[in-house]
């Protein structure tokens, strides 16, 4: 699987994503500078975490309007898989590639900690190495991660099975950290090719750092896209 990681001037999890991709796939991903005109031919595009253009207006708002993201959209339309992590998820909602919006955490503060997630869909290109209903632990690190969509939209995306990860609130789960509606932590689009999530799977892919539950997300992609 060949992947590209988009590097905005304020990205800061681009290296983390690249390291994990290389560790899992054995192939160094292409690092694509936001000012570049075109994307190389790849199977997967990763929009990494960070603060794309400083995120001053709304997280991801300015990146959503950038030329490189227009190119990403075009690739996505051609069927290339797109994974948005944290800021990448914010960008995907701002572009409209994924529904809803990510708002300020309900507690207002930035939160960095491990959270428990329930895998809602284990039949997607991004999650087929997990099992349905499984509980996994992956860190979050964000200030604007409270997922919002109106009831009608929520019903629709639930109905269409677009919710892939939920914060685990029941049975000793660590709970909903940010006030996301319906505990939504990660979403996939209708085509099944575009996914965004607030937790950072690339931070849970190396046993030395305390957990490897995120690794299987990249393994799923490798399996599907190879």
């Amino acid at each position: 699987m060949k992947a590209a990681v988009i590097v905005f001037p304020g990205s800061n999890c681009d290296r983390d994503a690249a390291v994990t991709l290389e560790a899992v796939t054995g192939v160094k991903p292409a690092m694509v500078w936001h000012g570049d005109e075109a994307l190389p031919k790849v199977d997967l595009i990763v929009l990494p975490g960070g603060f794309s253009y400083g995120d001053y207006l709304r997280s991801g708002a300015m990146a959503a309007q950038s030329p490189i993201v227009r190119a990403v959209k075009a690739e996505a339309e051609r069927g290339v898989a797109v994974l948005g992590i944290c800021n990448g998820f914010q960008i995907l909602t701002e572009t409209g590639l994924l529904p809803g919006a990510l708002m300020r955490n309900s507690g207002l503060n930035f939160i960095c900690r491990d959270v428990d997630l329930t895998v809602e869909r284990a039949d997607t290109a991004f999650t087929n190495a997990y099992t349905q209903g499984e509980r996994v632990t992956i860190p979050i690190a964000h200030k604007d991660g409270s997922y919002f969509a109106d009831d009608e939209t929520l019903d629709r995306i639930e109905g269409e099975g677009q919710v892939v990860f939920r914060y685990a609130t029941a049975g000793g789960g660590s709970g909903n950290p940010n006030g996301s509606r319906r505990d939504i932590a990660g979403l996939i689009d209708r085509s099944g090719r575009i996914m965004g999530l607030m937790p950072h799977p690339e931070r849970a892919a190396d046993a030395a750092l305390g957990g490897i539950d995120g690794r299987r997300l990249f393994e799923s992609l490798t399996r599907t896209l190879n």
Partner: protein
Amino acid sequence: MKARITVTLKNGVLDPQGRAIANALHSLGFGGVEDVRQGKLIEVELKATDETSAKTELDAMCRQLLANPVIENYRVELL
């Protein structure tokens, strides 16, 4: 020409910032505060001199960038 754009959360969208401000005001003793909503104020200085074209331009800015229609409303005033 100067314009003032205000971006506010739509009704029904939870506003944790506004709520936190209301709580803080209460604990400072401002018991008369019933509700607080926080929004953004964006002041734009424009080259344009024609009101109608300025309005159209400002409106386009809001739709494309300054407000997120999923959660926000906006209002444009020329000063």
